[in-house]
């Protein structure tokens, strides 16, 4: 079942664009239903994943424009400063929050590019089909997104290691 096969990818992409699980799942559902309606336009000779994810990305972007910014899941007080918590679980939670905040600061196209490349394993060419830009632009987006996210993770680890 294709819905089950691509559910995880679609949800992650939509959540990356919208910044929260609830809106992300709604947008992913909108994307699947739009893909069903437009199934006659799908070329079976081309890979299905990029075609579907392009529709999901458009649905998420449309929802983002229409909605007022919904508050993201509340962040712990130490999230922005990166001060380590008392135990490992708290540290993981704070790292997640810091990474989530850094992802939210990226332009939507960079979020899409880095998620599809580093999380879902799509090529630069396939990602270019999803966001309808050149392959070179995708490479640039991935580069800039990685730099920002890696700096956040690196900074958080550095702060954690301070005495």
């Amino acid at each position, binding site marked *: 079942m294709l*819905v089950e096969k691509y559910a995880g990818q679609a949800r992650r992409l939509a959540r990356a664009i919208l910044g929260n699980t609830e809106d992300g799942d709604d947008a992913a559902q909108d994307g699947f239903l739009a893909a069903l309606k437009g199934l006659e336009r799908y070329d079976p000779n081309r890979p299905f994943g990029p075609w579907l994810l392009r529709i999901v990305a458009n649905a998420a972007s449309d929802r983002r424009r229409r909605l007022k910014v919904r508050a993201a899941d509340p962040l712990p007080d130490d999230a922005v400063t990166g001060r380590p918590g008392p135990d490992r679980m708290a540290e993981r939670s704070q790292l997640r929050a810091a990474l989530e905040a850094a*992802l939210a600061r990226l332009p939507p196209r960079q979020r899409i590019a880095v998620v599809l490349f580093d999380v879902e394993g799509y090529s630069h060419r396939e990602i270019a089909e999803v966001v309808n830009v050149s392959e070179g632009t995708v490479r640039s987006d991935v580069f800039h997104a990685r730099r920002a996210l890696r700096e956040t993770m690196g900074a958080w680890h550095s702060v954690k290691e301070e005495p």
Partner: protein
Amino acid sequence: MSEFLPFDHQPDPVLGEALRELLTGPDDAAFARRVLAQMPTSLAAESWWDVLDQWARPGLAAAVLLLLATGIWLAGVRYQAEGPIALVEDVPTETWRAGALLASRTAPEFNVDLVLAGEPTPN
């Protein structure tokens, strides 16, 4: 994490895993059921996705080609089983031997039956 190549063209497993953990929601199966429940029942939604799934399988294309090739082969076999077709049903001939050649399904014996068209067979 401080060591990375700015133009690294390979996926970053550390960053990828961190983002995956951040973005993965619970229970993809429940989400899939939710999507399927929203699909119009008049379209027999599951069958549409199943058909699309079948299109994606290369084995289906191979089966279609095999059936086509078998059909062409069978048509050729049936054609060869038919005998020679008489080009004309009734040929005005001077002798019965020419008519026999036209109707015969076996090759003539030229040393006996070779005749020229229009020449009567001597008695």
